[in-house]
């Protein structure tokens, strides 16, 4: 019953999306003015209906309704509740439903709160959003119905991939999805503005919180995903340049560029065409990423829902949405008038430079990801890995980070670095640069084995961190607006993360050891001893658990428990690593197999300062949150002030 209800509601939501599109399109014509009033309520209703459909699917998973095909294939009655819920989106159909749900709910939200953008552009935006949604509704209803029943209810479900039964992963995909789909709103705004030829500060102001929100979710999603890969895969690495990882990185790069260019458009009315282009690009990258992951045309370690048939469907959507948007861009952008100009030494110029660098990195990652596909067209098989990605993206990243330190200190439109400005800008920056140089020289002289890239990273991070705080110098800290704090925290987070990455690659120590019980080994400053081995059991797995006592430089020992787990439903194995975190790094222990002579194969890593990678990522997300909070609060203050004025006016009888 619930399944049928879900499907029916989904169909109704799709019909409303069609209505939203048609009404929006007609309302933009001179004779269809009255239809414009229909668009907002329809958008809201569509959001409510699709939310009901999604709730129905969650309910089916929670109750483990074994007459529904999707539940049988992806869930099991013995699974813990949290993974039953996570199972809703841990599969292709459910994740697509989550996708349209977020899209429709975001559209409804825009319809309710957006009052300051001119009405025609807003209607065009909601129409565009309905157009993209319709494609995904069609995909769900015709090619991947999540509510399909089995002719004969199954006895038991088949369970969820063991790698996915992890609390981090339960929330990692929805976080990324909110990010991807939030970018769809930015995309729709860009289309709306192109249709009505109204690209200006008002459009930027409407689009900005969506870009910022999506970007925060993407940042946190990528950070969490990286940490998940680090501790579940048991390989000791934190980024593998895998196609799926790249698929999440590319929208983030585009969104980062968009975020900065939209701020220029809002405050300076410059970079009009560029901002619209990035708005289209950011969501395009989300869709390209989805296509690469779902179609299976690239080999990846975490392709969980691969099917070429679905790939063809997503490719068709991709062609219609992105091809259409780019064609619209090409035809319309020459009629978008040029914005304000600025000189070479100005905050705008530094933002443009970094935008170009971000797009450069995006291009590098895209080419690297697709290169195997290109060479396969000529019958040559290659795989592209860190030896390409690391140095080539660093060529763009390092200059970008230098400019990131300078840019926020420059004035809008035109700046000069002489006189009083030298004391404010040049000298503090020179001190930071000297610090970076000192670190570089120190690293190169003290540790010869460290390669150039990590050494440069350490140096740059050391200069960048203090430089990030320079915009606060000379300000009254209590009166500094939240968005400025946000920028400072986010930029400092980049420095922190870079320091972690460089340190991990420069100073990591790896040991492979076959240990008998009671045997010890040295791993960098640590001494580890295998104390014992014990079988343990969970709700749907059994495992061998090792007890490893570890002591750091002779300090009191602590005990770690790495496990090799065997899952029963469905069968599978997972090596749960054990981590010991100190302020200056992490010890990483993985239990392997037992050798024929009874010794246990174990792998140890000592990774100095590695947690800074994710701490930095979290700081970047927090910075975004502060900025968003600041904007929302100033909007609220303005609304309240407006209400007060209106109230006084009515009381005075005016």
């Amino acid at each position, binding site marked *: 019953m619930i399944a049928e209800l879900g499907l029916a509601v989904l169909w109704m939501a799709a019909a409303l999306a069609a209505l939203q599109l048609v009404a929006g399109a007609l309302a933009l014509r001179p004779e269809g003015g009255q239809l414009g009033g229909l668009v907002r309520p329809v958008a809201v209703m569509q959001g409510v209906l699709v939310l009901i459909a999604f709730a129905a699917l969650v309910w089916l998973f929670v109750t483990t309704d074994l007459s529904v095909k999707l539940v049988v294939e992806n869930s099991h009655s013995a699974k813990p509740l949290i993974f039953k819920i996570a199972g809703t989106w841990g599969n292709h159909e459910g994740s697509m439903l989550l996708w349209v749900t977020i899209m429709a709910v975001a559209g409804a939200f825009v319809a309710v709160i957006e009052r300051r953008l001119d009405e025609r552009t807003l209607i065009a935006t909601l129409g565009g959003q309905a157009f993209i949604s319709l494609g995904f509704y069609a995909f769900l209803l015709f090619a991947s119905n999540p509510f399909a029943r089995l002719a004969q209810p199954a006895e038991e479900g088949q369970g969820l991939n063991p790698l996915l039964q992890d609390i981090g992963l339960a929330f990692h995909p929805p976080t990324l999805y909110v990010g991807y789909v939030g970018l769809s709103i930015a995309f729709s705004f860009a289309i709306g503005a192109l249709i009505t030829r109204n690209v200006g500060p008002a459009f930027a102001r409407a689009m900005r919180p969506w870009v910022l929100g999506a970007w925060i979710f993407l940042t946190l999603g990528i950070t969490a995903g990286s940490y998940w890969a680090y501790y579940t895969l048991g390989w000791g690495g934190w980024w593998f340049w895998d196609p799926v990882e790249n698929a999440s990185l590319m929208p983030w790069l585009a969104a980062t560029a968009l975020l900065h260019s939209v701020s220029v458009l809002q405050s300076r009315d410059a970079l009009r065409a560029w901002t619209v282009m990035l708005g289209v690009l950011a969501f395009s990258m989300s869709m390209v990423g989805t296509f690469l992951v779902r179609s299976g045309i690239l080999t990846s370690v975490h392709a969980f829902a691969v099917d070429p048939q679905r790939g063809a469907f997503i490719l068709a959507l991709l062609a219609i949405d992105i091809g259409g948007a780019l064609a619209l861009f*090409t035809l319309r952008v020459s009629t978008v008038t040029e914005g304000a100009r600025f000189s070479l030494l100005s905050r705008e110029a530094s933002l443009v430079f970094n935008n170009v660098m971000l797009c450069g990195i995006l291009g590098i990652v895209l080419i690297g990801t697709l290169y195997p596909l290109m060479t396969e*067209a000529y019958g040559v098989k290659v795989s592209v890995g860190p030896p390409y990605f690391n140095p080539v993206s660093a060529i763009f990243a390092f200059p970008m980070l230098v400019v990131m330190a300078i840019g926020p200190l420059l004035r809008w439109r035109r700046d000069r670095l002489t006189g009083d400005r030298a004391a404010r800008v040049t000298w503090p920056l020179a001190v930071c640069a000297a610090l970076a140089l000192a670190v570089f020289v120190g690293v190169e002289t003290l540790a010869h084995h460290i390669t150039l890239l990590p050494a440069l990273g350490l140096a740059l991070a050391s200069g960048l961190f203090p430089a990030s705080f320079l915009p606060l110098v000379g300000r009254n800290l209590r009166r500094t607006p939240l968005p400025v704090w946000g920028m400072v925290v986010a930029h400092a987070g980049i420095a922190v993360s870079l320091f972690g990455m460089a340190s991990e690659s420069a100073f990591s120590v790896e040991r492979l050891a076959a240990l008998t019980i009671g045997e010890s080994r040295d791993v960098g400053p640590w001494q580890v001893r295998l104390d014992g081995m014990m079988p343990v059991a969970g709700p749907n797995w059994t495992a061998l658990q090792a007890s490893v006592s570890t002591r750091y430089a002779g300090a009191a020992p602590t005990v770690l428990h790495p496990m090799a787990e065997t899952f029963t439903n469905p069968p599978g194995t997972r090596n749960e690593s054990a981590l010991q975190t100190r302020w200056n790094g992490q010890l990483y222990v993985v239990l392997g197999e037992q050798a024929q002579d009874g010794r246990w194969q174990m792998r140890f890593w000592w990774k100095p300062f590695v947690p800074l990678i994710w701490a930095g990522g979290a700081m970047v997300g927090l910075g975004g949150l502060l900025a968003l909070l600041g904007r929302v609060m100033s909007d609220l203050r303005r609304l309240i002030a407006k209400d007060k004025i209106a109230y006084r006016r009515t009381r005075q009888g005016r």
Partner: protein
Amino acid sequence: MSDNTEKPRNRLALWLPLAIFGGLFALFVHGLMRPADNNVPSTFVGNPLPQFDLPAAAADRPGLATSAFRTGKPRLLNVFASWCVPCAAEAPQLAALAQAGVDVEGVAIHDRPEDLARFLANNGNPYAAIGRDDKRVVQIAIGSSGVPETYVIDGQGVIRYQHIGDIRADDVPMLLGKLKEAASKGAGS
């Protein structure tokens, strides 16, 4: 508009994003249409055999050196071991190949002479020579990751083909074909 003069150049640049997207789309369509093939050919194919000179592994056969492959006639190099079950399973196919006039050379991996003698007695001995590779030196040098594997080596000692896993009955004509191919290539070079 006043800036009519510079429009044409601008227009062309504006088509660029759409053109790039068109290229990507073509690439994706091609990627989808292509049948999935996840086999990666060995990079050793096309390279000459590395230098080695292995001692004899069995009493009645000589050891194996690189020079044995420079006779102008293509031959098979079979990497095997007595402790490997699929190696016993492919023995009849190797015998059939030897019967057809193919020279088969063997490299015994990590083996004991008495085990090997028993293995050859039970499964037949199609090998012209068997080298003893206790430390897997040759195996690693020719890019073999397990046993059994069979290489087609042309008359100049160049690796022409690598077959991973046991030789099934229907692989025999395929290997004969590869040997014929190697004969023409080896003579040509």
